[in-house]
């Protein structure tokens, strides 16, 4: 009787360990997606594409989490995070490019990127 109980504790602990990082990763990826949206990623073509991928990957990660596939959920959340982060830097790149072009125009005032 003692051995099955011990096994159950070990399995529960292992499941808990696997769940927490995945949930944390999903939460973080959602925050990064929100940041990308707020920065206007949907208005910059390349960034919009990366944002779209990130949004789908977040949904996918949530589904994997619900189905108990925590390790894959963690990776999917990391994919979402990397796509959302890319969307953010693409927005910044677009703004910096516009600022550089404006600054090259005589008489123009370049906005901060």
């Amino acid at each position, binding site marked *: 009787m003692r051995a099955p109980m011990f096994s159950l504790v070990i399995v529960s602990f292992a499941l808990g360990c696997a769940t927490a990082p995945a949930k944390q990763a999903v939460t973080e990826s959602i925050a990064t997606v929100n940041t990308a949206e707020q920065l206007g990623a949907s208005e910059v073509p390349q960034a919009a594409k990366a944002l779209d991928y990130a949004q789908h990957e977040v949904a996918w990660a949530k589904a994997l989490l619900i189905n108990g596939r925590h390790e*894959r959920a963690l990776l999917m959340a990391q*994919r979402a995070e990397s*796509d959302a*982060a*890319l969307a953010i830097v693409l927005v910044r790149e677009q703004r910096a490019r516009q600022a*550089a072009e404006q*600054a*090259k125009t*005589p008489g123009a005032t370049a906005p901060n990127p």
Partner: protein
Amino acid sequence: MSPRPLTFIAASLALVACAHKPPEELREARATYQKAAADPSTRQETPAELDEARRSLVRAERSFVVEGDTPKTRDRAYIATRKAELALVMGRTADYVESARNAELWQAREALSAEQAENAANAARLAEEQELRAEAERRAALAIAALAEIAAVRSEPRGTIVTLSGSVLFASGKSTLLPSATSRLSQVAEALTAGDPGSTFVVEGYTDSSGSEAFNQKLSEARAQAVREFLVDHGVAPDRIEARGLGESQPVASNATAEGRANNRRVEIVIQPPPS
């Protein structure tokens, strides 16, 4: 050996080769990382992001070695690709920011140069104006010195006053210049034209109190006009000189004595300096 075992071996080798062929995601991750690592801006501006991309790629490679072409390996390769892309984009962004900063600095330098050139031009213009002004003042001083030899000259707030005696210029009660007056007036005209080109003149006629006031007024106006016309005929620009008669209104001496009346019969030329 029959052909069947050979076929089997060939098929087995093909399967092994396929099993070890890296997935498309991993190949893309390698290529993207290599591109980022070879990019000078990325290496210089985003070393931390580039290192993160490298570590992601190592994780994907390790996953491929350990697990083979699995979804997890593909996920890790995908993440590695995105990390390398992120480093590349951040490198380009840094270039744009630097470019904008350089353009702004260049424009600021251009504006400064233009301002300095304008200041230099203004200073040169000012110096030239001051030189012209000094020259005009020198000429005016010479002209007044010349006038002082042929007439009474005094300074008043409204300008330099040159007083010519009426008896020298006109016969009694007349406004026609005496022949003897022309020599002196010619000298006056010469001095006025040689003086400051920016100054203007007013010829004022005065009489004594003998006769009616109306007659004296008309006589003073006619005499002032006669002097003005003479000066214009002798080179003074007409738009620089005007004439006005003031009759007996402003005597400089008593009209009770002959000497006083002689002093009151006069023509004054007011030399007004140009407005500063």
